[in-house]
């Protein structure tokens, strides 16, 4: 399967479904940027800035576990929750088909 569908909830609450290729080694952060969501990605995907913070509302349990760098960063975020992830650390794959993510970056980073 080359394409999956991911639902994205933006800051207004609107949910849109976007198609995502799984054969290009893209991260969810790159996909969100390509779809013109307001994701700064200041650090370019190194788990350093958390401007790509998302909350995975559906499909969280299917994701690969967070690495130490990602957990350390998430742990510092004031609005983090159990389903927080950094989109830059999530490589698009088939297990993400149907996932619902909500954008959750710091409002100062928009």
């Amino acid at each position: 399967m080359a394409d999956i569908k991911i639902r994205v909830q933006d800051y207004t609450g609107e949910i849109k479904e976007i198609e995502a290729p799984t054969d290009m080694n893209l991260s969810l952060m790159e996909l969100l940027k390509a779809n013109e969501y307001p994701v700064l990605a200041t650090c370019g995907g190194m788990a350093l800035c958390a401007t790509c913070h998302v909350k995975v509302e559906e499909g969280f349990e299917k994701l690969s576990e967070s690495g130490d760098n990602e957990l350390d960063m998430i742990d510092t975020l004031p609005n983090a929750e159990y389903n927080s992830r950094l989109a830059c650390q999530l490589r698009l794959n088939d297990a993400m088909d149907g996932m619902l993510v909500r954008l959750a970056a710091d409002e100062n980073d928009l």
Partner: protein
Amino acid sequence: MIQTDICIIGAGPVGLFSVFEAGLLKLRCHLVDALPQVGGQLSEIYPKKPIYDIPGFPTVKAQELVDNLMEQIKPFNPTFTLGERLDTMEKTATGFQLKTSDGTEIDCKVVVIAGGLGCFEPRKPPIVDIAKFEGKGVHYMVKDPETFRDKNVILAGGGDSALDWTIELSKIAKKITLIHRNETFRGAPDSAEKVFDLAKEGKINLLLKSNLTSVSGNGKLNAVKVQGADKSELELEADYLIPLFGLSPKLGPIAEWGLSIDKNAIEVNTTDYSTNIPGVYAIGDINTYPGKLKLILCGFHEGALMAQSAFKHIYPDKHLSFKYTTVNGIESF
């Protein structure tokens, strides 16, 4: 007062290579970086990681690339101010005067901002009106612990700095409360254990699975509200609130210099990577333009074009003929 042709803000790979490109045109450079060493992210964050997209190097470790760049620019004798952050930039008759956080002054003809991610500033919790109490009870870092002696202090966060300051301030404050949204801490296990011990001994008030929700006071902070895991709300009296939610990269003081900025990055003209202020350029990860890629490779290119333009800015009447290093070698100075 340091005098130079070009002051480069940021001593990462792109700032360093710009010294080479400027040097070929006999322009002298001074570099300033908030970090105590050169190399920017490469040295600070991933010195041992391999980089695969530097032309001519199938693979090179980040620190190796920095060391090589330092070697490459040696002939042009760059000077450095490290461990100081540039705070202000003012226009002068001949160029610009820059001043660092420590008061170092630099007089230059051209300013090149190669600041990468920018500077790391404390992350602020999303609480309504918290800005009103900044400096009036809300502090994002502990500068002088004595400020908190015999005071009622609330800390929030779960990282090393939250743990360390909870332990330190518990020795001098009247009352310490630590609020953390989790049950466990990812900070150093020793510090976490100490914090749990202090809580058991009744020396600190530890509120786990809790979140800050609001701050209040009359001109000065006097209370914060906290929501527990069961959604119950608790109001706590407080002289001080210290939110310690890590650091986030921001443009910092550069944002106040009148530059045209889009989403935390400096807008440039891709002809020469000049900004909206004549004589000020922005190269590398800190700039933005249509099609921008945050690659070291692209930063090097931007530095080369910047140097040509900077020469023309400094010497508008001089003729600049482009020379290859293979033909002319490198004339050091």
